[in-house]
């Protein structure tokens, strides 16, 4: 009995991180791994962003000025893949790593070694994907949706490396998701029932289930491509009895839940931030939880709304139109709940709150254009135009990315023990906000006026708006350097942050010192 106590005592005693590079290579600490994910995602944001720069520079004026069409196609493809799989998803996993143990009062993630592996796969996967740009024939040039047969029979030789890279990213995501589920299910502090869990944990739990369900589907579809390319099968080749449309069904069965994977954790973040700065409890906690579950379930039965023009039977079009409209209902509930949380609160507008408010407004705009797109007959016109590009950027940039910014500003004092420069951060917000709208709002107009997406050059009637869009994009892109500057300044010379820097923030993460010690909650806290 006594020996046992002594032994646990030994295991428990706080030891700091290892020294040097091995700390990062071999770490199993959720905070270290969380930081690595976040830094990786920031680097990817800049790489993907510079590709967007190339795209917008080419589209600044009509005519081909800077790049050849084939390289342009590689840029749009890589931009999409890097932003989705390299910037948004790893940032969320980084937030999950940092915050889920702190929010549920667990000492670490449940599967720490798996955690290390799932991170370290990513740099290799993305290096492999990016070197294809320098291979004979160039990198992937078939869009981030890589429709067959453009991505199989007609693909550049490097497509095999692309397939392998996707497999690695998928494996990493699945491991990360399993870790989240196991952690949340098993390691909540005593007394923290599911319905007491912070909303960020709820959204991530559902996201993790979505990931586990659909990443294997993505792996399946790229494997079918591999078979078609190298082993003589014809899944997607009508000449051999296959069907190119099958590719799209499988891809979007992954793809639509994927778009929710990229938004649900942001829902979670703003559901933490808004109550703090409105100094009021989140309105309708229960209906928020049910809404997330409803969205997740429905997201499996709407996929073909991306395929209204492939020639589905009428019944199919009707089904997917109705289910897609239905998904707007729980989404609306969430928006109404956030607004009601603000209503009759006592609001202040620190940077995380500014990002969250912008999130609610701009995500709503993206959701409304989503409703327009869901109407099959009108989608015959919108589909594959810049209107769609505007829609998904409104849900992804002020949705996913602003959610991430809100989270970073909100929890940075906890992570680093330093306060960021509020004035500079507000400046970063306003420049991003203006840049973003200048970039993506006019895309609605050119899309409606008839500009197809994924083209390196365009007819003259779209010239003016495209120039505005490009100027906005340059503004938005460069303004992210301010963010990097703020981060560095905080880490080097930020004022010391108190344990709970926000006046009325609730949650276990604010009951530990700032910066969070290397090991936290070695003995679980009690939640009542």
């Amino acid at each position, binding site marked *: 009995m006594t020996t046992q106590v002594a032994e646990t005592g030994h295991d428990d005693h706080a030891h700091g991180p290892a020294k040097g590079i091995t700390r990062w290579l071999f770490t199993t600490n959720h905070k270290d791994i969380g930081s690595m994910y976040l830094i990786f995602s920031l680097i990817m944001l800049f790489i993907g962003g510079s590709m967007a720069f190339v795209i917008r520079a080419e589209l600044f004026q009509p005519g081909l000025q800077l790049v050849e*069409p*084939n390289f342009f196609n590689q840029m749009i493809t890589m931009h999409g893949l890097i932003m989705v799989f390299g910037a948004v998803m790893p940032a969320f996993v980084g937030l999950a790593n940092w915050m889920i143990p702190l929010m549920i009062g667990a000492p670490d993630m449940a599967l720490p070694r798996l955690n290390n592996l799932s991170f370290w796969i990513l740099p290799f996967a993305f290096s492999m994907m990016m070197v294809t740009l320098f291979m004979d024939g160039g990198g992937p040039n078939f869009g981030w949706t890589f429709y067959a047969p453009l991505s199989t029979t007609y693909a550049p030789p490097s497509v095999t490396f692309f397939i392998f890279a996707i497999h690695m990213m998928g494996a990493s995501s699945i491991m990360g998701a399993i870790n989240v589920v196991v952690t949340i299910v098993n390691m909540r502090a005593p007394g923290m029932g599911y319905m007491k869990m912070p909303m960020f944990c709820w959204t991530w739990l559902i996201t993790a289930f979505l990931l586990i369900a659909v990443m294997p589907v993505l792996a399946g579809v790229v494997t079918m491509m591999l078979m078609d390319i190298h082993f003589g099968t014809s899944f997607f080749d009508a000449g051999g009895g296959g069907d190119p449309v099958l590719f799209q069904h499988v891809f979007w069965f992954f793809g639509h839940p994927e778009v929710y994977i990229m938004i649900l954790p942001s829902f979670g973040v703003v559901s933490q931030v808004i109550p703090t700065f409105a100094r009021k409890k989140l*309105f309708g906690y229960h209906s928020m939880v049910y809404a997330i579950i409803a969205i997740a379930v429905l997201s499996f039965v709407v996929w073909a709304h991306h395929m209204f023009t492939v020639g589905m039977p009428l019944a199919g079009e009707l089904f997917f139109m109705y289910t897609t409209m239905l998904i707007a209902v729980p989404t609306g509930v969430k928006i109404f709940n956030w607004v009601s949380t*603000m*209503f009759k609160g006592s609001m202040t507008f620190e940077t995380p709150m500014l990002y969250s408010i912008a999130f609610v407004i701009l995500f709503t705009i993206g959701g409304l254009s989503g409703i*327009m797109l869901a*109407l099959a007959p009108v989608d015959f016109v919108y589909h594959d135009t810049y209107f769609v590009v505007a829609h998904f950027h409104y849900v992804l940039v002020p949705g996913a990315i602003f959610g991430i910014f809100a989270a970073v500003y909100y929890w940075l004092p906890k992570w680093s023990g330093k306060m960021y420069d509020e004035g500079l951060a507000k400046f970063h917000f306003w420049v991003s906000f203006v840049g973003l709208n200048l970039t993506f709002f006019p895309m609605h107009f050119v899309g409606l006026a008839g500009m197809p997406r994924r083209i390196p050059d365009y007819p003259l009637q779209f010239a*003016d708006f495209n120039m505005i869009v490009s100027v906005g994009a340059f503004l938005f892109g460069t303004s992210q350097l301010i963010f990097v500057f703020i981060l560095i300044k905080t880490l080097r010379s930020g004022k010391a942050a108190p344990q709970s820097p926000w006046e009325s923030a609730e949650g276990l993460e604010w009951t530990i010192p700032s910066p969070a010690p290397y090991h936290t909650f070695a003995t679980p806290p009690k939640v009542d």
Partner: protein
Amino acid sequence: MLQNVRILSVLLAFFPALAWSEWEVNMTRGVTDTSAAIYDLHMIVFYICVVISIVVFGVMFWSMYHHRKSKGAEPHPFHESSTIEILWTIVPLIILIVILVPATKTLIQTYDTAESDIDIQVTGYQWKWRYKYIGQDVDFFSVITTPSDEIYNKAEKNPNYLLEVDRPLVLPINKKIRFLFTSNDVIHAWWVPALALKKDAIPGFINESSTKINEPGIYRGQCAELCGKDHGFMPIVIKAVTESEYVAWVAEQKALKQKEASASQKDWSMEELMAKGEEVYNKNCSACHQPTGVGLPPVFPALKDSPIALGPIQDHMDIVFSGKAGTGMSAYGEQLSAVELAAVVTYERNAWGNNVGDKLLPADVEKLKGGK
């Protein structure tokens, strides 16, 4: 003052497009009944969305203004209300149903499968469209004509920049036209905004859509599905004409075909073949093999100094005639006339420093065509 004028003119210089552009911000109403129905639906939903945003953002901005801590607002503790939560689940549901009624009607309208007057098979090729009037013996390709000097900014761009083709699709107004879409290689999408018609052209499958144009005119569109390198350069031009003009046009096409057939009997000189060959090459082959024959290896091989272009003429003819399955190289035997085939092969063997010196005669190609 002068300063301001100067700044203004600099700003204006940044918008050289001002002269061409109409700052178009909305969908066109189009020229068919379906396109008008779709436009109306679009506007209805748009206004509903505007009203929803005004309500939601109104409440939000109102709270942001009045319920600020700096104005001394105290937080109210309420955080749940089943009534209101049920209400804002039901009300949106009702709004959605209200939208879905006209949407369903319009969708059914686009699925109209009644008898058609004219059937046209539309085939997507990398990167051009082929129109085959079924039962009419009219069958041609429609290729972009925007000169590369305009694309590469060496010449002033004309108003129809990127939206012009050599042979438009000629259609009669007030006739029901049925399109059958398919593709020869990858997936393309045929899109003409004025008809509100967008349909994927999928290799190995046939998609169907119909339209009935109400007004004569020229309507332009573009490919809407990423289909490779020159996806941005395969426009669609429709010339909608009255019925009598259409009938005259069809007759003209048939006469043209006859003339072509007799041309292949003629004895073509090397110069004639080279001149014709260059024209055919630049229209059909240069997108992949490049105007100077150097190709874009490894996907699109060079023809300059290529063993095939310098080797036996029969092998050269065979690959052009039959293509190579599973690559961008399609079978040109059924796409080009005997004269064009003979000319382009001759051209490839004797251009850009290739110097074989032999020529292929249309009559020989004709034999091959008959044989296959």
